[in-house]
């Protein structure tokens, strides 16, 4: 399964995409907040978003799945 995973522990500040969107390599898809910093998370492949697995305000750990891609 191809995914976008969280690079570090933190909370989901903003979701920039939804299921069905097409994303490209390097595109910001989620903004996390961690250590009081805005952490943009990028897609590392060209794909379509199959599912968004988190919601704004949720805690995620390093490696938690943010998006499923297809």
């Amino acid at each position, binding site marked *: 399964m191809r995914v976008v995973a969280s690079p*570090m522990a933190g909370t989901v500040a903003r979701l920039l995409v939804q299921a069905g969107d097409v994303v490209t390599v390097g595109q910001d898809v989620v903004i996390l907040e*961690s*250590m009081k*910093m*805005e952490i*943009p998370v990028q897609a590392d492949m060209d794909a379509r978003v199959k599912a968004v697995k988190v919601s704004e305000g949720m805690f995620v750990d390093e490696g938690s799945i943010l998006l499923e891609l297809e």
Partner: protein
Amino acid sequence: MKPNDELLAKIEQIKQGGPEHYRKRVQAAGRLLARERLARLLDPGFGVEDGLFADAMDEGNAADAVITGVGKIHGRTVCYMANDATVKAGSWGPKTVEKILRIQETAANLRTPMLYLVDSAGARITHQVDMFPGRRHAGRIFYNEVMLSGLVPQICLLFGPSAAGGAYIPAFCDIVVMVDGHASMYLGSPRMAEMVIGEKSSLEEMGGARMHCEVSGCGDLLVQHDQEAIDAARSYLQYFPDHCDNQPAIMPATDPAKDPQELEQLIPSNQNAPFDMLDLIERLVDAHSFLEIKALFAKELITGLARIGGRAVGIVASQPKVKGGVLFVDSADKATRFIALCDAFNIPLLFLADVPGFMIGSKVERQGIIRHGAKMIYAVSEASVPKISVIVRKVYGAGLYAMCGPAFNADATLALPTAYIAVMGPEAAVNAVYYNKIMELQGDEREHFIHERREEYCRDIDLYKLASHLIVDAIVPPFRLREELINRFAAYASKRMTNPRKRHGVMPV
């Protein structure tokens, strides 16, 4: 046949390397033969080779699959070893090992850089008694690398495999350049892993170049073909002296590729917003002089060699656009290694700090972030080359220490007007100190109280107040930073200091 003719014929034949169909296969794949690599790496017109006749009584084992000798790069003497992958897949026999040991000993005696052009299937197991366990066997190659480490630069160009024990040749070098899709190293092959532990994997997964440059951190530079690796080695060497008692050569200065006046706009006034530190570096260093090391690994911290006003410097910089520039286990390791490299070879250090601190949380605690962070601070402390720390934006807590804060013998701590030095940010601090009081209050009253306390906090750590206490040595406007660094590094060039004499410290690892 006359003796001379016989000799020339034999030399010619050995220099051909392995069987023709292997050579043709290499060339068909667009790759280079071992002697072609050396011809492109080394300056033309000078070269002495040792041990050409190794194993000459066995027809199929030209030079025992390794070429060792002395050459020049940019007019500077260097020693080299190069596996010949067309001869028994570049595998090691007893003479291979002895030739490598001897050229390493030569590098130590001559005090020249030592280059390892690795492309080898590993040791020939059938010969193990003559090459594995003994005093002048394979282990001694790694022992020699350790003795050479920090004495002279050691560069590994990984063109192909370096399997099992052979993987330690790259491991002890200062820098490992890996050719994507061809270079690999692992202690156990996928085939061995399946047999011995039951794991199924591919070559790329187990020990591919990309994996090592992105994930394990064993690789420093990922290149796309042999020539690029050779170019990288020639470039890299120009930042270094021949040995630890010399200074790196100063080159003619060139202006930055982009306008330093633009530095001002790059740094967001919102401390929490990301920006690309590489854009800042590009406006600070001599054009095209930045050679990034471990660019694909622990990207939240940038390490690389550059020139400022023609003078080589080692840059350790936060990268706020990756993980907020927070320090993790891998970034601490990456920084430690790079700092040690620069300090070994008299390359001054420049820290560009914009760091919220070390990562917190149970995951990193279990990884030992405390001891990894301590290791980085150890390296910073021990470095006795000129050190300048520039506080670009915020620097909190142990992040200040790790990026060579004032207590760590920085020759100068410079702050940009956007600098913000504190034990932690205002939100976290107020929350920590006034938690009970905040909980007692409600709504607008609570909001107001928090706001007042944060304002108070910011006044307390006002940059001019810190400067008035001599916490920082100077506050520098961004457009003047380059000039300031050129002048300071020039002045600090005569710095000579030694740490207290002892056998060696007990470094946190």
